[in-house]
Protein backbone atom coordinates (compact mmCIF):
# COMPACT_ATOMS: atom_id res chain seq x y z
CA UNK A 1 0.00 0.00 0.00
CA UNK A 2 1.31 3.40 -0.89
CA UNK A 3 1.27 5.95 1.88
CA UNK A 4 -0.60 9.12 1.04
CA UNK A 5 1.63 12.13 0.44
CA UNK A 6 1.77 14.16 3.68
CA UNK A 7 0.85 17.83 3.65
CA UNK A 8 4.40 18.91 4.41
CA UNK A 9 7.58 16.96 3.95
CA UNK A 10 10.90 18.32 5.15
CA UNK A 11 13.87 16.47 3.71
CA UNK A 12 17.41 16.63 5.01
CA UNK A 13 17.16 20.32 5.75
CA UNK A 14 20.33 22.18 6.74
CA UNK A 15 21.16 25.77 7.45
CA UNK A 16 24.61 27.18 8.08
CA UNK A 17 25.10 30.75 9.19
CA UNK A 18 28.42 32.43 8.70
CA UNK A 19 28.89 35.18 11.26
CA UNK A 20 31.52 37.74 12.02
CA UNK A 21 33.32 39.93 9.57
CA UNK A 22 36.92 39.13 10.21
CA UNK A 23 36.65 36.05 12.39
CA UNK A 24 34.20 34.07 10.32
CA UNK A 25 32.57 31.33 12.27
CA UNK A 26 30.21 28.71 10.92
CA UNK A 27 27.12 28.05 12.93
CA UNK A 28 25.24 24.93 11.97
CA UNK A 29 21.78 26.02 12.99
CA UNK A 30 19.96 23.09 11.39
CA UNK A 31 21.65 19.83 10.48
CA UNK A 32 19.95 17.37 8.15
CA UNK A 33 16.45 17.56 9.59
CA UNK A 34 13.68 15.46 8.03
CA UNK A 35 10.07 15.08 9.12
CA UNK A 36 6.53 15.21 7.83
CA UNK A 37 3.30 16.81 8.91
CA UNK A 38 0.09 15.09 7.95
CA UNK A 39 -3.30 16.62 7.40
CA UNK A 40 -5.28 17.47 10.53
CA UNK A 41 -2.27 16.91 12.73
CA UNK A 42 -0.57 18.96 15.45
CA UNK A 43 3.14 18.23 15.45
CA UNK A 44 5.30 19.81 18.14
CA UNK A 45 8.91 20.71 17.61
CA UNK A 46 10.55 20.87 21.04
CA UNK A 47 14.01 22.16 21.81
CA UNK A 48 15.88 24.65 23.94
CA UNK A 49 16.90 28.05 22.66
CA UNK A 50 19.51 27.78 19.97
CA UNK A 51 18.45 24.27 18.97
CA UNK A 52 17.46 25.42 15.48
CA UNK A 53 13.71 25.16 15.84
CA UNK A 54 12.95 28.75 14.91
CA UNK A 55 15.30 28.57 11.93
CA UNK A 56 13.44 25.46 10.78
CA UNK A 57 10.16 27.35 11.10
CA UNK A 58 11.50 30.29 9.13
CA UNK A 59 12.70 28.03 6.34
CA UNK A 60 9.30 26.36 6.12
CA UNK A 61 7.63 29.78 6.13
CA UNK A 62 9.93 30.78 3.29
CA UNK A 63 11.49 33.56 5.32
CA UNK A 64 14.97 32.06 5.40
CA UNK A 65 16.72 30.15 2.63
CA UNK A 66 18.03 26.67 3.50
CA UNK A 67 21.68 25.86 2.83
CA UNK A 68 20.63 22.44 1.59
CA UNK A 69 17.67 20.08 1.68
CA UNK A 70 14.07 20.50 0.60
CA UNK A 71 10.72 21.59 1.94
CA UNK A 72 7.86 20.03 0.01
CA UNK A 73 4.36 21.34 0.50
CA UNK A 74 1.72 19.29 -1.28
CA UNK A 75 4.54 17.85 -3.33
CA UNK A 76 5.95 21.19 -4.49
CA UNK A 77 9.43 22.25 -3.48
CA UNK A 78 8.88 25.50 -1.65
CA UNK A 79 12.30 26.95 -2.49
CA UNK A 80 12.68 25.68 -6.06
CA UNK A 81 9.25 25.21 -7.59
CA UNK A 82 7.63 28.47 -6.53
CA UNK A 83 8.84 30.91 -9.16
CA UNK A 84 6.15 33.40 -10.05
CA UNK A 85 4.56 35.93 -7.76
CA UNK A 86 1.33 33.91 -8.11
CA UNK A 87 3.08 30.78 -6.82
CA UNK A 88 4.37 32.67 -3.82
CA UNK A 89 1.00 34.16 -3.03
CA UNK A 90 -0.47 30.65 -3.30
CA UNK A 91 2.03 29.48 -0.72
CA UNK A 92 1.23 32.42 1.55
CA UNK A 93 -2.44 31.44 1.33
CA UNK A 94 -1.64 27.83 2.18
CA UNK A 95 0.88 28.23 4.98
CA UNK A 96 0.67 30.93 7.62
CA UNK A 97 2.53 31.68 10.80
CA UNK A 98 2.12 33.02 14.32
CA UNK A 99 5.12 34.45 16.13
CA UNK A 100 6.40 34.24 19.66
CA UNK A 101 6.13 37.86 20.70
CA UNK A 102 2.51 38.97 20.40
CA UNK A 103 3.61 42.57 20.76
CA UNK A 104 6.52 42.52 18.34
CA UNK A 105 4.33 40.97 15.65
CA UNK A 106 2.53 44.28 15.31
CA UNK A 107 4.09 47.31 13.78
CA UNK A 108 3.51 49.78 16.64
CA UNK A 109 3.01 52.52 14.11
CA UNK A 110 -0.34 51.22 12.88
CA UNK A 111 -3.74 50.21 14.19
CA UNK A 112 -4.61 46.55 14.55
CA UNK A 113 -6.69 46.72 11.35
CA UNK A 114 -3.54 46.90 9.26
CA UNK A 115 -2.55 43.28 9.88
CA UNK A 116 -5.83 42.24 8.27
CA UNK A 117 -5.66 44.74 5.43
CA UNK A 118 -2.22 43.42 4.54
CA UNK A 119 -3.75 39.99 4.03
CA UNK A 120 -6.41 41.23 1.59
CA UNK A 121 -4.10 40.76 -1.37
CA UNK A 122 -4.16 37.04 -0.60
CA UNK A 123 -7.97 36.91 -0.78
CA UNK A 124 -9.81 36.29 -4.08
CA UNK A 125 -9.59 39.31 -6.34
CA UNK A 126 -13.33 39.48 -7.04
CA UNK A 127 -14.13 39.99 -3.36
CA UNK A 128 -15.12 43.52 -2.38
CA UNK A 129 -13.97 45.25 0.77
CA UNK A 130 -17.23 44.66 2.57
CA UNK A 131 -16.95 40.92 2.10
CA UNK A 132 -13.33 41.04 3.21
CA UNK A 133 -14.11 42.86 6.43
CA UNK A 134 -16.94 40.39 6.90
CA UNK A 135 -14.35 37.62 6.84
CA UNK A 136 -12.22 39.51 9.34
CA UNK A 137 -15.12 39.74 11.75
CA UNK A 138 -15.86 36.06 11.32
CA UNK A 139 -12.24 35.18 12.02
CA UNK A 140 -12.13 37.41 15.10
CA UNK A 141 -15.27 35.82 16.47
CA UNK A 142 -13.84 32.39 15.81
CA UNK A 143 -10.79 33.15 17.99
CA UNK A 144 -13.03 34.50 20.73
CA UNK A 145 -12.69 38.24 20.21
CA UNK A 146 -15.29 40.92 19.70
CA UNK A 147 -14.54 42.62 16.34
CA UNK A 148 -16.02 45.88 17.51
CA UNK A 149 -13.72 45.88 20.53
CA UNK A 150 -10.57 45.01 18.61
CA UNK A 151 -10.75 46.88 15.33
CA UNK A 152 -9.59 50.47 15.36
CA UNK A 153 -7.37 49.88 18.39
CA UNK A 154 -3.60 50.20 18.61
CA UNK A 155 -1.71 47.02 19.52
CA UNK A 156 -0.64 48.38 22.91
CA UNK A 157 -4.30 48.81 23.84
CA UNK A 158 -4.81 45.05 23.73
CA UNK A 159 -3.55 42.47 26.22
CA UNK A 160 -0.96 39.89 25.26
CA UNK A 161 -3.57 37.16 24.94
CA UNK A 162 -5.79 39.34 22.78
CA UNK A 163 -2.91 40.24 20.53
CA UNK A 164 -2.00 36.60 20.06
CA UNK A 165 -5.63 35.81 19.19
CA UNK A 166 -5.61 38.63 16.65
CA UNK A 167 -2.54 37.09 15.04
CA UNK A 168 -4.27 33.74 14.85
CA UNK A 169 -7.40 35.34 13.37
CA UNK A 170 -5.25 37.04 10.80
CA UNK A 171 -3.75 33.73 9.76
CA UNK A 172 -7.19 32.12 9.57
CA UNK A 173 -8.42 34.82 7.20
CA UNK A 174 -6.91 33.07 4.19
CA UNK A 175 -7.97 29.60 5.37
CA UNK A 176 -4.46 28.12 5.38
CA UNK A 177 -3.86 24.39 5.41
CA UNK A 178 -0.84 24.64 7.67
CA UNK A 179 -0.15 26.96 10.57
CA UNK A 180 3.39 27.38 11.89
CA UNK A 181 3.07 28.55 15.49
CA UNK A 182 6.48 29.57 16.83
CA UNK A 183 6.29 29.69 20.64
CA UNK A 184 2.81 31.19 20.47
CA UNK A 185 2.24 31.17 24.23
CA UNK A 186 5.71 31.45 25.74
CA UNK A 187 5.29 35.14 26.45
CA UNK A 188 1.83 34.79 27.90
CA UNK A 189 0.93 34.17 31.51
CA UNK A 190 -0.08 30.69 32.53
CA UNK A 191 -3.72 31.65 33.01
CA UNK A 192 -3.92 32.89 29.40
CA UNK A 193 -2.05 30.00 27.81
CA UNK A 194 -4.74 27.40 28.09
CA UNK A 195 -7.15 29.52 26.07
CA UNK A 196 -4.78 29.79 23.11
CA UNK A 197 -3.90 26.11 23.26
CA UNK A 198 -7.58 25.15 23.34
CA UNK A 199 -8.15 27.40 20.35
CA UNK A 200 -5.41 25.69 18.36
CA UNK A 201 -6.88 22.28 19.15
CA UNK A 202 -10.32 23.49 18.17
CA UNK A 203 -9.01 24.73 14.83
CA UNK A 204 -7.52 21.34 14.12
CA UNK A 205 -10.76 19.58 15.05
CA UNK A 206 -13.17 21.91 13.30
CA UNK A 207 -11.22 23.24 10.33
CA UNK A 208 -8.90 20.33 9.79
CA UNK A 209 -5.95 22.67 10.17
CA UNK A 210 -2.48 21.17 10.47
CA UNK A 211 -0.23 22.86 12.97
CA UNK A 212 3.50 22.85 13.57
CA UNK A 213 3.73 23.87 17.22
CA UNK A 214 7.19 25.07 18.16
CA UNK A 215 8.04 25.31 21.83
CA UNK A 216 10.78 24.95 24.41
CA UNK A 217 8.23 23.70 26.92
CA UNK A 218 7.74 19.96 26.85
CA UNK A 219 4.69 20.39 29.06
CA UNK A 220 2.82 22.36 26.43
CA UNK A 221 3.85 19.97 23.67
CA UNK A 222 2.57 17.10 25.78
CA UNK A 223 -0.89 18.68 25.87
CA UNK A 224 -1.51 19.80 22.35
CA UNK A 225 0.38 17.46 20.07
CA UNK A 226 -0.39 14.34 18.16
CA UNK A 227 3.31 13.83 17.65
CA UNK A 228 6.43 15.37 19.22
CA UNK A 229 9.78 15.98 17.53
CA UNK A 230 12.74 16.73 19.78
CA UNK A 231 15.47 18.93 18.41
CA UNK A 232 18.92 19.30 19.93
CA UNK A 233 21.79 21.35 18.54
CA UNK A 234 20.29 21.51 15.06
CA UNK A 235 19.45 17.84 14.84
CA UNK A 236 16.26 15.89 15.28
CA UNK A 237 17.07 13.40 18.01
CA UNK A 238 13.76 11.79 18.79
CA UNK A 239 10.21 11.53 17.56
CA UNK A 240 7.18 10.01 19.19
CA UNK A 241 3.71 10.06 20.61
CA UNK A 242 3.50 12.43 23.61
CA UNK A 243 2.70 9.76 26.23
CA UNK A 244 5.35 7.39 24.95
CA UNK A 245 7.95 10.12 24.79
CA UNK A 246 7.32 11.35 28.31
CA UNK A 247 7.18 7.89 29.82
CA UNK A 248 10.04 6.27 27.97
CA UNK A 249 12.38 8.68 26.23
CA UNK A 250 15.16 6.91 24.35
CA UNK A 251 17.72 9.55 23.36
CA UNK A 252 20.00 10.69 26.20
CA UNK A 253 19.15 14.33 25.53
CA UNK A 254 15.42 13.69 25.72
CA UNK A 255 15.96 11.71 28.89
CA UNK A 256 17.83 14.57 30.51
CA UNK A 257 15.37 17.13 29.21
CA UNK A 258 12.42 15.28 30.66
CA UNK A 259 14.09 14.60 33.97
CA UNK A 260 15.00 18.28 34.32
CA UNK A 261 11.46 19.58 33.83
CA UNK A 262 10.10 20.79 37.15
CA UNK A 263 6.86 18.97 37.91
CA UNK A 264 4.02 19.70 40.22
CA UNK A 265 3.35 16.29 41.73
CA UNK A 266 6.89 15.00 41.86
CA UNK A 267 9.69 16.81 43.57
CA UNK A 268 13.22 16.28 42.28
CA UNK A 269 15.02 13.80 44.45
CA UNK A 270 18.47 15.21 43.77
CA UNK A 271 18.02 18.72 45.03
Amino acid at each position, binding site marked *: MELPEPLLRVENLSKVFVVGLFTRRRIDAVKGVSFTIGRREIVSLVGESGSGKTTTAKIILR*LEKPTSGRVLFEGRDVWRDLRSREDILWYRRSVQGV*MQDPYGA*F*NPFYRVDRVFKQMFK*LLPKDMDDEERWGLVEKALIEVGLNPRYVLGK*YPHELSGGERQRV*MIARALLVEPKLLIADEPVSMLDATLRSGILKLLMKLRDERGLSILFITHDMGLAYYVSDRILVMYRGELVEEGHPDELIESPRHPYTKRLISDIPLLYRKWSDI
Partner: protein
Amino acid sequence: MRFPRIVSELLANKKFVTGISVFLAVLIIGAVGPLLYPVDPEDMSFPSSMPPCPEHPLGTDYVGRDVLAQLLRGILSSLYVGFLAGVVALAIGVLVGAVAAMRGGVVDEGLMAFTNAVLLMPTTLVLILIAALFKTRSIELVALLIGITSWPWLARVVRGEFLSLKERDFVYMSLLAGDRWLSISLFDLLPNMATYIAMSFAELVAGAILQEAGISFIGLGPTEGVTLGRIFFWIQTNNAVIRGLWWWWLPTTVVIVAIAASLVLVSISLDEVFNPRLRGG
Protein backbone atom coordinates in the same frame (compact mmCIF):
# COMPACT_ATOMS: atom_id res chain seq x y z
CA MET B 1 1.70 56.77 20.40
CA ARG B 2 -1.20 58.74 19.12
CA PHE B 3 -0.90 62.17 17.68
CA PRO B 4 -2.43 64.28 20.49
CA ARG B 5 -0.32 62.34 23.01
CA ILE B 6 2.81 63.04 20.97
CA VAL B 7 2.08 66.74 20.93
CA SER B 8 1.33 66.91 24.63
CA GLU B 9 4.47 64.94 25.51
CA LEU B 10 6.59 67.19 23.34
CA LEU B 11 5.07 70.29 24.89
CA ALA B 12 5.79 68.91 28.34
CA ASN B 13 9.49 68.67 27.49
CA LYS B 14 11.32 71.87 28.40
CA LYS B 15 14.13 71.28 25.96
CA PHE B 16 11.71 70.87 23.09
CA VAL B 17 9.74 73.97 23.99
CA THR B 18 12.90 76.06 24.35
CA GLY B 19 14.38 74.73 21.12
CA ILE B 20 11.30 75.07 18.98
CA SER B 21 10.44 78.55 20.32
CA VAL B 22 13.90 79.91 19.62
CA PHE B 23 13.94 78.32 16.19
CA LEU B 24 10.50 79.61 15.23
CA ALA B 25 11.34 83.07 16.53
CA VAL B 26 14.47 83.22 14.38
CA LEU B 27 12.56 81.82 11.41
CA ILE B 28 9.83 84.43 11.73
CA ILE B 29 12.36 87.21 12.13
CA GLY B 30 14.12 85.98 9.01
CA ALA B 31 10.91 85.66 7.02
CA VAL B 32 9.18 88.86 8.09
CA GLY B 33 12.20 91.02 8.95
CA PRO B 34 13.31 91.97 5.43
CA LEU B 35 9.73 93.10 4.67
CA LEU B 36 9.51 95.30 7.74
CA TYR B 37 13.04 96.60 7.38
CA PRO B 38 13.50 97.04 3.63
CA VAL B 39 17.11 98.24 3.61
CA ASP B 40 19.44 96.86 0.94
CA PRO B 41 22.10 94.85 2.79
CA GLU B 42 24.67 95.46 0.08
CA ASP B 43 24.18 99.21 -0.09
CA MET B 44 27.50 100.72 0.98
CA SER B 45 26.34 104.32 1.02
CA PHE B 46 26.01 104.65 4.80
CA PRO B 47 28.71 106.05 7.06
CA SER B 48 31.29 103.44 7.95
CA SER B 49 31.63 101.64 11.34
CA MET B 50 28.70 103.38 13.03
CA PRO B 51 27.64 101.96 16.41
CA PRO B 52 23.93 101.16 16.87
CA CYS B 53 21.73 104.24 16.52
CA PRO B 54 18.06 104.90 15.72
CA GLU B 55 18.60 104.86 11.94
CA HIS B 56 20.72 101.75 12.08
CA PRO B 57 19.55 99.65 15.04
CA LEU B 58 22.62 97.40 14.72
CA GLY B 59 24.92 100.01 13.31
CA THR B 60 26.87 99.81 10.08
CA ASP B 61 29.88 97.79 9.05
CA TYR B 62 33.38 98.77 8.03
CA VAL B 63 32.41 99.56 4.46
CA GLY B 64 29.16 101.29 5.33
CA ARG B 65 26.50 98.58 5.01
CA ASP B 66 23.58 98.28 7.40
CA VAL B 67 24.23 95.36 9.79
CA LEU B 68 20.61 94.65 10.66
CA ALA B 69 19.73 94.44 6.98
CA GLN B 70 22.60 91.99 6.47
CA LEU B 71 21.52 89.89 9.39
CA LEU B 72 17.86 89.72 8.37
CA ARG B 73 18.76 88.70 4.83
CA GLY B 74 21.41 86.30 6.11
CA ILE B 75 19.04 84.37 8.37
CA LEU B 76 16.73 83.28 5.59
CA SER B 77 19.54 82.47 3.16
CA SER B 78 21.36 80.44 5.76
CA LEU B 79 18.20 78.55 6.71
CA TYR B 80 17.68 77.89 3.01
CA VAL B 81 21.21 76.52 2.68
CA GLY B 82 20.66 74.38 5.76
CA PHE B 83 17.35 73.03 4.58
CA LEU B 84 18.59 72.24 1.08
CA ALA B 85 21.77 70.60 2.30
CA GLY B 86 19.75 68.72 4.92
CA VAL B 87 17.43 67.30 2.29
CA VAL B 88 20.33 66.22 0.08
CA ALA B 89 22.21 64.59 2.96
CA LEU B 90 19.06 62.93 4.26
CA ALA B 91 18.25 61.48 0.85
CA ILE B 92 21.75 60.08 0.32
CA GLY B 93 22.13 58.88 3.91
CA VAL B 94 18.82 57.06 4.04
CA LEU B 95 19.30 55.52 0.61
CA VAL B 96 22.84 54.31 1.25
CA GLY B 97 22.02 53.04 4.74
CA ALA B 98 18.85 51.29 3.65
CA VAL B 99 20.35 49.66 0.58
CA ALA B 100 23.40 48.49 2.55
CA ALA B 101 21.21 46.94 5.24
CA MET B 102 18.65 45.37 2.92
CA ARG B 103 21.08 44.02 0.31
CA GLY B 104 23.69 42.84 2.77
CA GLY B 105 26.78 40.90 1.76
CA VAL B 106 29.22 42.50 -0.66
CA VAL B 107 26.96 45.47 -1.36
CA ASP B 108 26.79 46.20 2.33
CA GLU B 109 30.52 45.85 2.89
CA GLY B 110 31.31 48.00 -0.14
CA LEU B 111 28.85 50.75 0.74
CA MET B 112 29.95 50.83 4.35
CA ALA B 113 33.64 50.94 3.48
CA PHE B 114 32.85 53.84 1.18
CA THR B 115 30.76 55.55 3.86
CA ASN B 116 33.54 55.15 6.41
CA ALA B 117 36.06 56.46 3.94
CA VAL B 118 33.98 59.57 3.29
CA LEU B 119 33.46 59.96 7.02
CA LEU B 120 37.20 60.09 7.57
CA MET B 121 37.73 62.94 5.12
CA PRO B 122 38.14 66.36 6.71
CA THR B 123 34.80 67.73 5.49
CA THR B 124 35.63 71.41 5.58
CA LEU B 125 38.75 70.80 3.55
CA VAL B 126 36.87 68.70 1.00
CA LEU B 127 34.40 71.54 0.61
CA ILE B 128 37.21 74.03 0.21
CA LEU B 129 38.86 71.78 -2.34
CA ILE B 130 35.72 71.53 -4.44
CA ALA B 131 34.44 75.06 -3.95
CA ALA B 132 37.77 76.50 -5.05
CA LEU B 133 37.18 75.01 -8.47
CA PHE B 134 34.10 77.08 -9.16
CA LYS B 135 34.42 80.62 -10.37
CA THR B 136 30.98 81.57 -9.19
CA ARG B 137 29.01 79.66 -6.59
CA SER B 138 25.29 79.95 -6.15
CA ILE B 139 23.65 79.33 -2.77
CA GLU B 140 22.20 76.11 -4.17
CA LEU B 141 25.59 74.85 -5.32
CA VAL B 142 27.09 75.43 -1.89
CA ALA B 143 24.13 73.71 -0.25
CA LEU B 144 24.50 70.77 -2.61
CA LEU B 145 28.21 70.47 -1.87
CA ILE B 146 27.57 70.54 1.87
CA GLY B 147 24.82 67.97 1.46
CA ILE B 148 26.99 65.50 -0.42
CA THR B 149 29.71 65.66 2.20
CA SER B 150 27.60 65.34 5.35
CA TRP B 151 25.57 62.13 4.95
CA PRO B 152 27.96 59.36 6.09
CA TRP B 153 27.12 59.20 9.80
CA LEU B 154 23.42 59.21 8.95
CA ALA B 155 23.95 56.31 6.56
CA ARG B 156 25.58 54.38 9.39
CA VAL B 157 22.74 55.07 11.78
CA VAL B 158 20.08 54.21 9.19
CA ARG B 159 21.85 50.98 8.33
CA GLY B 160 22.00 50.00 11.99
CA GLU B 161 18.33 50.79 12.49
CA PHE B 162 17.30 48.90 9.36
CA LEU B 163 19.34 45.90 10.41
CA SER B 164 17.72 45.72 13.81
CA LEU B 165 14.22 46.53 12.58
CA LYS B 166 14.28 44.01 9.75
CA GLU B 167 14.64 41.19 12.25
CA ARG B 168 11.53 42.27 14.08
CA ASP B 169 8.55 39.97 14.05
CA PHE B 170 6.25 42.45 12.36
CA VAL B 171 8.51 42.41 9.33
CA TYR B 172 8.07 38.66 9.13
CA MET B 173 4.34 39.12 9.44
CA SER B 174 4.37 41.51 6.48
CA LEU B 175 6.42 39.00 4.50
CA LEU B 176 3.87 36.33 5.37
CA ALA B 177 1.17 38.60 4.00
CA GLY B 178 3.06 38.61 0.71
CA ASP B 179 4.53 42.11 1.02
CA ARG B 180 7.79 42.76 -0.80
CA TRP B 181 10.94 44.26 0.63
CA LEU B 182 10.44 47.63 -1.02
CA SER B 183 7.02 48.11 0.51
CA ILE B 184 8.25 46.72 3.83
CA SER B 185 11.12 49.21 3.81
CA LEU B 186 8.80 52.07 3.06
CA PHE B 187 5.80 51.23 5.19
CA ASP B 188 7.15 49.06 8.00
CA LEU B 189 10.71 50.19 8.60
CA LEU B 190 10.86 53.87 7.72
CA PRO B 191 7.86 54.94 9.84
CA ASN B 192 9.52 53.31 12.84
CA MET B 193 12.56 55.45 12.24
CA ALA B 194 10.55 58.65 12.00
CA THR B 195 12.09 59.99 15.21
CA TYR B 196 15.61 59.23 14.08
CA ILE B 197 15.00 60.82 10.74
CA ALA B 198 13.48 63.95 12.25
CA MET B 199 16.35 64.17 14.72
CA SER B 200 18.95 63.66 12.05
CA PHE B 201 17.34 66.22 9.82
CA ALA B 202 17.40 68.86 12.54
CA GLU B 203 21.06 68.10 13.19
CA LEU B 204 21.93 68.07 9.49
CA VAL B 205 20.32 71.47 9.00
CA ALA B 206 22.21 72.88 11.98
CA GLY B 207 25.45 71.32 10.77
CA ALA B 208 25.00 72.63 7.24
CA ILE B 209 24.41 76.18 8.43
CA LEU B 210 27.61 76.04 10.44
CA GLN B 211 29.47 74.39 7.60
CA GLU B 212 28.37 77.13 5.22
CA ALA B 213 29.65 79.68 7.70
CA GLY B 214 32.95 77.82 7.79
CA ILE B 215 33.66 77.76 4.09
CA SER B 216 32.25 81.23 3.55
CA PHE B 217 34.56 82.43 6.28
CA ILE B 218 37.53 81.40 4.19
CA GLY B 219 36.00 83.03 1.11
CA LEU B 220 34.70 79.95 -0.62
CA GLY B 221 31.00 80.19 0.16
CA PRO B 222 28.28 81.50 -2.14
CA THR B 223 29.48 84.29 -4.38
CA GLU B 224 26.07 85.92 -4.46
CA GLY B 225 23.42 86.79 -1.89
CA VAL B 226 23.95 87.44 1.81
CA THR B 227 24.29 84.43 4.07
CA LEU B 228 25.43 84.43 7.68
CA GLY B 229 28.65 82.85 6.46
CA ARG B 230 29.32 85.66 4.05
CA ILE B 231 28.85 88.16 6.84
CA PHE B 232 31.53 86.25 8.77
CA PHE B 233 33.79 86.51 5.73
CA TRP B 234 33.37 90.27 5.68
CA ILE B 235 33.89 90.39 9.43
CA GLN B 236 37.15 88.47 9.04
CA THR B 237 38.53 90.32 6.03
CA ASN B 238 37.77 93.66 7.64
CA ASN B 239 39.28 92.65 11.00
CA ALA B 240 36.01 93.64 12.68
CA VAL B 241 36.81 91.89 15.94
CA ILE B 242 40.17 93.53 16.37
CA ARG B 243 38.70 96.86 15.34
CA GLY B 244 36.09 96.49 18.05
CA LEU B 245 33.00 96.51 15.81
CA TRP B 246 31.13 94.29 18.27
CA TRP B 247 27.67 95.28 16.90
CA TRP B 248 28.71 93.60 13.68
CA TRP B 249 30.16 90.28 14.76
CA LEU B 250 28.29 89.72 18.03
CA PRO B 251 24.65 89.67 16.76
CA THR B 252 25.69 87.51 13.80
CA THR B 253 27.35 85.06 16.15
CA VAL B 254 24.38 85.00 18.50
CA VAL B 255 21.96 84.33 15.65
CA ILE B 256 23.93 81.48 14.13
CA VAL B 257 24.47 79.83 17.50
CA ALA B 258 20.79 80.29 18.35
CA ILE B 259 19.71 78.56 15.14
CA ALA B 260 22.13 75.69 15.50
CA ALA B 261 21.62 75.19 19.23
CA SER B 262 17.82 75.36 18.97
CA LEU B 263 17.81 72.71 16.25
CA VAL B 264 20.08 70.46 18.26
CA LEU B 265 17.93 70.98 21.32
CA VAL B 266 14.89 69.89 19.31
CA SER B 267 16.79 66.82 18.21
CA ILE B 268 17.83 65.94 21.76
CA SER B 269 14.33 66.47 23.08
CA LEU B 270 12.86 64.20 20.40
CA ASP B 271 15.24 61.52 21.58
CA GLU B 272 14.17 62.05 25.18
CA VAL B 273 10.47 61.95 24.39
CA PHE B 274 10.46 58.97 22.07
CA ASN B 275 13.31 56.96 23.48
CA PRO B 276 11.97 55.22 26.57
CA ARG B 277 15.39 54.66 28.10
CA LEU B 278 16.13 58.35 28.16
CA ARG B 279 12.79 59.34 29.56
CA GLY B 280 13.26 60.84 32.99
CA GLY B 281 10.94 60.15 35.91
